[in-house]
């Protein structure tokens, strides 16, 4: 963390409005010209328990959460209370305060709601405050909220206190609240805001701590957007008008956003009985001539393995989204991990293939989702967008112009009725929809209802017109053609710019290889390492399949050693890299983390220095180093 940053953590009980409050706070500061990045932490329960969101605010672009933070707003957990007796259950109620002290920086600020939290319940509180030089503001936010409105408005009181201490112009927040609240609610919130703000200004020394929001300015209009938003908007802009799904965290976010938007643009959303049905519906809709998608998270995606294979065999385009969370099985539902990579690459029987994109941030999520549709429909193959709980949920500011793109309604490699008249047909009268000699492995498909185009789509091996066949020559031809697509797609993707991200000085001694949601954090670590005069660069890979062998080979060859950073215990991305490159095992070491929390930049810096430069062992148990293979 640099000195001119605010990393604000708002903590409370799940269901207390932590997420929406932090979202508004982040958006207000974005509008004030700053760069923002949010990080969510929440338990797998609906109401109560300890949850927080961090909003990192800086005048410079921010790509990840920071290490630690410098401003804690601890609200009471209203669900830890028995509303009848106003009594607390166990010792849950102090968690918003007690659970957050470990990562608070020296000299940081603590604001807590003295109407609901009592520091006497936290052993050593005063000693720790003293030791760390924390500035503590005990303010009865609950009473302020009650006096001017309702108890739930203590979030607003907390935000007002933040403004008073961190020198944020109240109007920045107020105008956003005005936009987002009905007048009936807005008025009392304003009274709560003013009272809380004045209380700090009058009764406390607000200028004492060295925590303030920097000034900033954007060159162009920004939007505050999550990875899940970006995937949904990418799909909509690419002409996707059909989604089928079944809820599972964290995929539910994309499903929800799509369901809310599709009816508005004349599309269809279906919540169905299970994930097998969900993916099968997407295949059915696509077969009938609509751009369609489905998706899930680990366990639900496991059920989609069948329809995924069917889509490949019948050459039905479809886009599936896989939002990773910690596994195996139901694992840790609200915690991020990157351990479904192999699952997504290899699930489904036989020589089956699919295209896999793993975007690293909201901007990439938008672009790569669109690309996933284009490839799927052009090459008649399933495409998967692989992301995780982290990049799905974190909000960041992105220039609005990134999303200012024209919609694309092109269905890809289809055939019209006029073209069907001259197209090759089987003696049975059926259209030869699976011709052996398709260009780039693709043979155009007809859509049910088109005159002259009838054929049989089947998950069994089949002849050009779709008749089931075990003829060996035909089998080899069909397999070859389907496999040929992957090469053609590789060549196509090689023409794309900026899908995989290179970062850091071109001439570097060391390299870090990473994918997906860890990329932003690695970028930040790269900056720090270079500041500390280690010459390190990064390649963030987004194309998981087909794998960019040449690009990654060149990167690995250009450095002495490579550290592969990923959030899983079995080094799946390193394994993939080694398999695809077929060599360089001795150059690749791993830095792994799988405790349910994403990497922080400092962990990557430490991990790199300790294990690569100093050849030592890592200090903590949070991250794990796996050295390069030696023969």
């Amino acid at each position: 963390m640099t000195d001119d940053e605010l990393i604000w953590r708002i903590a409370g009980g799940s269901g207390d409005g932590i997420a929406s409050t932090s979202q508004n706070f982040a958006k207000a500061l974005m509008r004030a010209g700053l760069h923002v990045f949010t990080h969510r932490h929440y338990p797998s329960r609906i109401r109560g328990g300890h949850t927080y969101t961090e909003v990192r605010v800086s005048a410079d672009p921010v790509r990840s959460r920071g290490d630690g933070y410098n401003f804690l707003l601890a609200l009471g957990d209203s669900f830890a209370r028995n509303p009848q007796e106003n009594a607390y259950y166990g010792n849950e109620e102090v968690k918003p305060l007690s659970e957050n002290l470990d990562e608070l920086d020296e000299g940081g600020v603590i604001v807590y709601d003295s109407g609901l939290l009592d520091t006497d319940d936290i052993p050593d509180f005063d000693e720790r405050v003293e030791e760390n030089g924390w500035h503590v503001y005990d303010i009865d936010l609950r009473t302020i909220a009650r006096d001017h409105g309702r108890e739930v408005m203590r979030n607003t009181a907390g935000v007002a206190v933040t403004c008073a201490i961190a020198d944020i112009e109240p109007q920045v927040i107020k105008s956003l609240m005005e936009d987002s609240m009905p007048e009936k609610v807005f008025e009392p919130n304003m009274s709560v805001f003013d009272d809380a703000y004045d209380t700090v200004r009058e009764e406390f020394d607000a200028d004492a701590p060295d925590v303030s929001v920097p000034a900033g300015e954007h060159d162009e209009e920004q939007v505050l957007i999550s990875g899940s938003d970006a995937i949904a908007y990418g799909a909509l802009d690419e002409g996707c008008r059909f989604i089928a799904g079944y809820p599972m965290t964290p995929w539910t976010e994309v499903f929800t956003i799509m369901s809310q938007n599709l009816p508005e643009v004349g599309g269809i959303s279906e919540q169905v009985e299970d994930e097998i049905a969900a993916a099968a519906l997407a295949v059915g809709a696509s077969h009938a001539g609509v751009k369609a998608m489905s998706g899930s998270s680990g366990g639900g995606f496991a059920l989609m393995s069948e329809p995924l294979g069917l889509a490949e065999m019948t050459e039905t385009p479809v886009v599936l989204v896989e939002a990773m969370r910690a596994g195996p099985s139901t694992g840790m539902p609200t915690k991020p991990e990157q351990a479904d990579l192999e699952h997504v690459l290899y699930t489904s029987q036989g020589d089956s293939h699919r295209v896999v994109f793993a975007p690293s941030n909201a901007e990439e999520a938008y672009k790569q989702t669109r690309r996933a549709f284009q490839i799927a429909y052009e090459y008649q193959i399933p495409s998967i967008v692989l992301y995780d709980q982290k990049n799905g949920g974190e909000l960041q500011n992105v220039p609005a112009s990134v999303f200012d793109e024209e919609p694309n309604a092109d269905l890809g490699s289809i055939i019209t009725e006029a073209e069907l008249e001259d197209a090759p047909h089987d003696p049975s009268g059926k259209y030869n929809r699976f011709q052996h000699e398709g260009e780039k492995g693709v043979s155009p498909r007809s859509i049910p209802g088109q005159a002259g185009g009838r054929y049989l789509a089947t998950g069994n091996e089949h002849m050009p017109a779709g008749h089931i066949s075990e003829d060996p020559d035909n089998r080899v031809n069909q397999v070859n053609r389907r496999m040929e697509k992957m090469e053609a797609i590789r060549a196509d993707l090689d023409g794309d710019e900026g899908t995989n991200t290179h970062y850091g000085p071109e001439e570097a001694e060391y390299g870090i290889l990473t994918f997906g949601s860890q990329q932003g954090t690695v970028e930040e670590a790269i900056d720090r390492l270079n500041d500390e005069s280690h010459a390190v660069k990064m390649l963030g890979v987004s194309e998981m399949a087909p794998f960019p062998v040449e690009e990654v080979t060149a990167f690995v060859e250009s450095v002495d050693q490579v550290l592969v950073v990923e959030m899983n215990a079995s080094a799946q991305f390193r394994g993939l890299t080694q398999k695809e490159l077929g060599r360089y095992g001795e150059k690749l070491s791993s830095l792994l983390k799988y405790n349910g929390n994403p990497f922080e930049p400092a962990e990557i810096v430490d991990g790199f220095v300790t294990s690569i430069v100093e050849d030592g062992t890592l200090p903590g148990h949070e991250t794990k180093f796996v050295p390069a293979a030696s023969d």
Partner: protein
Amino acid sequence: MSAFSAIGEHAEHDRNEYTPGVEPQPTWCPGCGDFGVLKALKGAAAELGLSPEEMLVCTGIGCSGKLNSYFDSYGFHTIHGRSLPIARAAKLANPGLTVIAAGGDGDGYGIGGNHFIHTARENHDMTYIVFNNEIFGLTKGQTSPTSPKGHKSKTQPHGSAKDPIRPLSMSLNAGASYIARTAAVNPNQAKDIIVEAVEHDGFSHIDFLTQCPTWNKDAKQYVPYIDVNDSEDYEFDNTDRNEASEMMFETENVLNEGTVLTGRYYVDEDRPSYQQEKRRIGEIPEEPLAERYFDEEYEWERVYDTFLDKHK
């Protein structure tokens, strides 16, 4: 002009038009009941005047799943148990298509049972034909969900300890709005029922009794059957839910004792189909979605403005 000009053609059609010109020849065993379904379906399609290319026949896996290899229309031979979700999505995407799903009793009442219940519950506008031969055919004669209690097979050597599924009652309770049972040994009734089922706006379930002479020698389908709608002994009102329910219950008991009753068991013309309901609440477009991708005049909505409003 529509991109799907085969839809709504409704010319005169001969049943032979649905026979693929040369290959493939059916690989069903001699005497298999599946031939009866194929025949009835061809007759029904011709009677309905459906162009082969406005029909999409989705099947599962099993001997029955090969139906669309021998019926010449658009076809989707899917995976075991999954014909329904694929079929209903195709219908949602392009309501102009006549969508028929078909498969075995293992396929529809076993592995695909969950899809069956939900497709009936939602009352999707489509027809579902279940080839009920009370056995797994293609995997060589294992006990199926409709095999009677005590049925012996290689995987149930001591005889099945399970009561068979009651497909008609199950369908009624799940919400299907047209339910019939017919048999391969009576192709005329079977054809009439398919015609009605296709014309019905809602989920039409046909439990189609087919014989499997290869694996199920004692199947009851050989005994003479009675059309419940024609018989005075079984007089009931098939538009009355309670009467239909009682009738099904009775039938499904006697089926296991050796008498076979077929006919229309339940017809509900009032229940709106899923498509109608979705359209009513504004969750399905007026024009077929699939058409839009071929319509050069169509203005694709840009979501950018609403998006900006929400996120800036």
